[in-house]
C-alpha cells in the first residue's frame, strides 16, 4: 500500500461551526460510500479554506473567491469524480460572487458548501457580506444567497443548514451529494456556521432559524412559494433553513460533454488515432 498524506487536525477555534460542517461532510461521504480517491474537496481562502486537508480525499486549495471556476474545470475534466467546493461567505459572496452567480446559472453537477459566519475570521473579524448592518455601513442589508439563488431560473438545489442542527445538516449534505451524483446539477448548501471568536451568533441564530421542511404545506419544488416563504420569514427576522428549493434544469456537463466519452483528464500518450482529423484541418488551410 502506498502511504498518503496524514489528514490534518482542524485549525479552528473550539466551538467553531465548521466542525459541524466537516462532521456532516465526512458522514455523508461515508454514508454514500464515495471512495476517498474519487472525491475532490476544493476550498477557498479563510478559516473554512482548510477543510480539504482534514478528510483523506484529494484536496485543493484555491485562490480567494476562485473555488467555483476551479471546481467546474475539475468536474468537466473528469465527470466521474465527486467534486465538493467549499468556502466562506467572504470567499463566495464578496470576492467570488460573480462566479457564484454564474455557477447557479450554468448548473454543473457539483456540491458547493458555504460556511456562513458573517465575518472574516482569519483576518480578525471584519464584517462580511452576510453581516446585517455592518459597522461601516449600517444601512446595508445582508446578502441572502438563497434568495439570490432562487432568482436564477436554472438553479436546481438550494438548501440552508445550521451547524448546531447536526441531524438536519447530515440530511442536507447527503441530499446535496446525491443531487450532484445523480447529475442533476449544482447543489448549493449554505451552512450557518458561527465564529465563536469574532461573531458569535449561536444564540441569535438559534432563535431565528426556521426549518421550512417541517411546514406541512411547504413544497421545495415550488420556486415561487420558496421565494415568498423566504421573504416572509426575512420580514419576520427569521432565517429559513432546510431544503428550500430543488428542481431540474439541464446541466453544464450535458451541454459540453459527450455522454460516456473518455474523460479529458485521462490524457492519451498515443494520439495517432486523431491524425486523419488533424490532416483534415490542415487541408482546410490550403488555398
Amino acid at each position, binding site marked *: *500500500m*502506498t*502511504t*498518503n*498524506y*496524514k489528514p*490534518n487536525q482542524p485549525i479552528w477555534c473550539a466551538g467553531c461551526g465548521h466542525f459541524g460542517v466537516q462532521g456532516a461532510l465526512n458522514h455523508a461521504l461515508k454514508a454514500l460510500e464515495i471512495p*476517498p*480517491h*474519487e472525491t*475532490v474537496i*476544493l476550498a477557498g481562502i479563510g478559516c473554512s479554506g*482548510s477543510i*480539504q*486537508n482534514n478528510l483523506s*480525499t*484529494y*484536496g*485543493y*486549495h*484555491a*485562490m480567494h*473567491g*476562485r473555488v467555483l*471556476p*476551479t*471546481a*467546474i*474545470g*475539475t*468536474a*468537466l*475534466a*473528469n465527470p*466521474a*469524480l465527486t467534486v465538493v467546493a467549499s468556502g466562506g461567505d467572504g470567499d463566495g459572496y464578496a470576492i467570488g460572487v*460573480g*462566479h457564484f*452567480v*454564474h455557477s447557479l446559472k450554468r448548473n454543473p453537477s457539483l456540491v458547493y458548501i458555504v460556511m456562513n459566519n458573517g465575518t472574516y475570521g482569519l483576518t480578525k473579524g471584519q464584517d462580511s457580506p452576510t453581516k446585517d448592518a455592518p459597522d461601516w455601513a449600517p444601512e446595508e442589508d445582508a446578502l441572502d444567497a438563497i434568495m439570490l439563488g432562487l432568482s436564477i431560473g436554472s438553479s436546481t438545489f438550494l438548501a440552508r443548514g445550521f451547524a448546531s442542527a447536526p441531524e438536519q445538516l447530515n440530511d442536507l449534505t447527503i441530499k446535496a451529494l446525491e443531487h450532484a451524483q445523480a447529475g442533476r446539477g449544482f447543489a448549493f448548501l449554505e451552512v450557518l456556521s458561527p465564529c465563536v471568536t469574532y461573531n458569535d451568533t449561536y444564540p441569535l441564530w438559534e432563535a431565528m432559524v426556521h426549518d421550512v421542511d417541517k411546514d406541512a404545506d411547504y413544497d421545495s419544488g415550488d420556486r415561487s412559494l420558496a421565494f415568498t416563504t423566504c421573504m416572509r420569514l426575512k420580514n419576520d427576522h427569521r432565517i429559513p433553513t432546510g431544503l428550500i428549493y430543488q428542481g431540474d434544469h439541464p446541466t453544464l456537463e450535458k451541454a*459540453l460533454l*459527450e455522454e460516456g*466519452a*473518455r*474523460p*479529458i*483528464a*485521462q*490524457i*492519451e*500518450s498515443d*494520439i495517432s488515432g*486523431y491524425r486523419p*482529423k*488533424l490532416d483534415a*484541418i*490542415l487541408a482546410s*488551410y*490550403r*488555398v
Partner: protein
Amino acid sequence: MNARTQNREAESGRSLTTRAREDVTVMVAGQGGDGSLTVIAFLARALSQRGLYLFRTSNIASRIKGGHAAAVLRGSALRRGCLGDKLDILVAFDDEAIEKAGPSVADDGIVIYDVSRGPLPGGILPSTAQVIEVPFGRLAVRDLRRDLFKNCFGFGVLSRVMGLSDDEALDCLKHRFRRLSEEDLRPNIGALENGLSFADDLGMTVDHGLFRLPRLEKEDRIVITGNEATAFGFLAAGGRFFAGYPITPATDIMDWLGKRFPQFGGVAMQAEDELSAINLAIGASFAGAKAMTASSGPGIALMQEGIGHCGSAEIPLVIVDCQRAGPSTGMPTKPEQSDIGLMTQGAPGDIPRVVLCPGTPEECFEYGVLATNLAQVAQCPIYIALDGLCQSAHMVPAFDLDSIEIDNGKRLDDAEISKLDEYRRYAITEDGISPWAIPGQRQGMNLVTGNERNEWGQVSTDPVNRAAMVDKRARKIDSVRHQLPRAYEWGDEQANVGVICVGMVGDVLIEARERLTGHGIGLRCHRPRTLWPLPDDTVDFVKSCERVYVVEYNKGGQLADLIRSVGAPAEGMHSILKYDGVPMSVAQLVEAILEKEKAR
C-alpha cells in the same frame, strides 16, 4: 460608356503599359459589408494558383457593422511576412477608402474606384497614379438587381487589371463559393463576367492587362494566422480544455477550438470573466487535462493571480497573450509588443515560467505543441507571446504533422503509484519536478495548494522547507532550459552591426536587411524565440557586435530592458521604437537604421 480611365500624367501613353511584377500589394477597402474581404479571398486563390506566396491582413474598425474596412493582400515570388511599402492596387468602394488609403498608393499605382457613391475625392492620390472609375454598385444593381454582387463585378475588373484569364477568375469564384448551389452561383458568375467585359471595353484584354504576374512552381502550402496555428498546435499536442473570455484579438483562439474540439472530445468554455477563465483551466489541468487559456493585455493582467497560483501550486497551463496596443483598453485592434515585462515579470512572488515568442505561423504551431508538452513536463505556466502575427494570415509550407512528439512528463499511472511506499505531491527532486498523480487514481490522494507547503502538500512556513521549496520550483526551469528555442539568426556573419527584434518585426527585418545591403550596410540579425528565461545566445550576440539596434513596438524598450537585465552591455544597444499602432513598413525600418548609422 460608364467609365473612364484617368491618368493625370496627361496621356503619357503609359495607361495600358503592362508591368511585369513578382511582388504586388493590393488593398480592397470600403464600408464593412461591401465585400472587401471576399474580393481579397478571390484574389488570394488566383495568386496562390500562380505559385506566389501570400500575406494578408485587414484593418477593421472595432464595431459590429459598417465602419471603414480594408483587406490587404501581398503576393510575392519570395516568401514575405509583411506588406509592401506602398499599395500597387487599391480597389476603393467609397470615398472614405480613398481618403484613408490614398496616401499609401504607390506613385505608379492603380486605383479602381467605385463612383456609385460619389466622385473621386481630389488631392489625395499621387498625381501619377492611374485611376479607373467604375460604378460597381450602380451596375450591379442595374444588371443583376443586387448591390451585393458588386464584389464579383469588382473582381472581374481587378482580374483584368492583374492580367488574369477568364478561367483563372472563374476558378476563384467557384473555389470560394464551392458550397453554393448552381442556382446561387449563377448570378455571381454573371457579375464576374460583366466585370470582365467591362474591363475589356476599357482596352484591358486577357493578354493585355496592366500587370503580368509570373507562373511559379507550386509546393504544398497553407495560409494561416498565428492564432489559428497556435490553437492547432495545442490541439495536435493533445490539448483538450480551453476557457477564455471574449477579447480582441485573442477571441479567434476560443472560437477556433470551440469549433474543432467536439470531434476530439475537447471542451471549450466561455467564462464570465478572465478570473474565471484561468481558474476553469487550472481546475481542468489539476484534474489532469491539458489546458490552455488565451487573452490580451487587460485580460492577461486579470489572470496574473492565476498565473502566480499555477507557478506556486505547480499546475501546468498554457497562456497565450495576443498583445495589443495598451495600456488599459488601449487600441484593441492594433498590435503592440508591450506585455513583455508583464509576461516575464508579472505575478506576485517568485514563480517558474517560460515565455515562448514565435515569429512565424510555423513557429506558432511548433510552440503550441512545445508549450503543451513543457507545461506537462515542468508543471508550471508557459506563455506564448503573440503580437500582430496573431491575426495576419501568412502563406507557409504545410505543417509537418509527422514531427509532433508528445511528452507527458512525470505523470504516474496507477501501477507506478501502487509501487511507491509513499506518495508526496511536492516531493523534492533533483530536477525540481515531482511525480504527479491526478484525482481518481486509487492510491494517489494528495493536497494541492498555492500556499507554501511541505512535500505532502500541507501548509508550512518552516524556513528550511520554504527555501527548499522555492529552490525546487526554480530548478524546474533549469531542467527544461535545453528544450527552449534559441534565437533565429541570419544576415551577414562578418557584419559588426546587429539588429534584434521579436515576433512580427522579424519579417520586416528580413526585407530591410536585404535593402540595406544595397546601401552598403551589412547587418547580422537576431530574433529571440524564448523571452523567459532568455537564452544566453542573445547576450552573446550583443557582445559580439559593435552596436546593436533593438527594434520593438512599445515606448519603454521592454525587450532591450530584458536583454540588459540578463547581462548584455547597455552601451552598445540602441532602441528603435514604434508605438502608433501601425506596424513598421520595410521602408520605415530601412530609414530608421540609415538615420542611426548616419548619425554616428
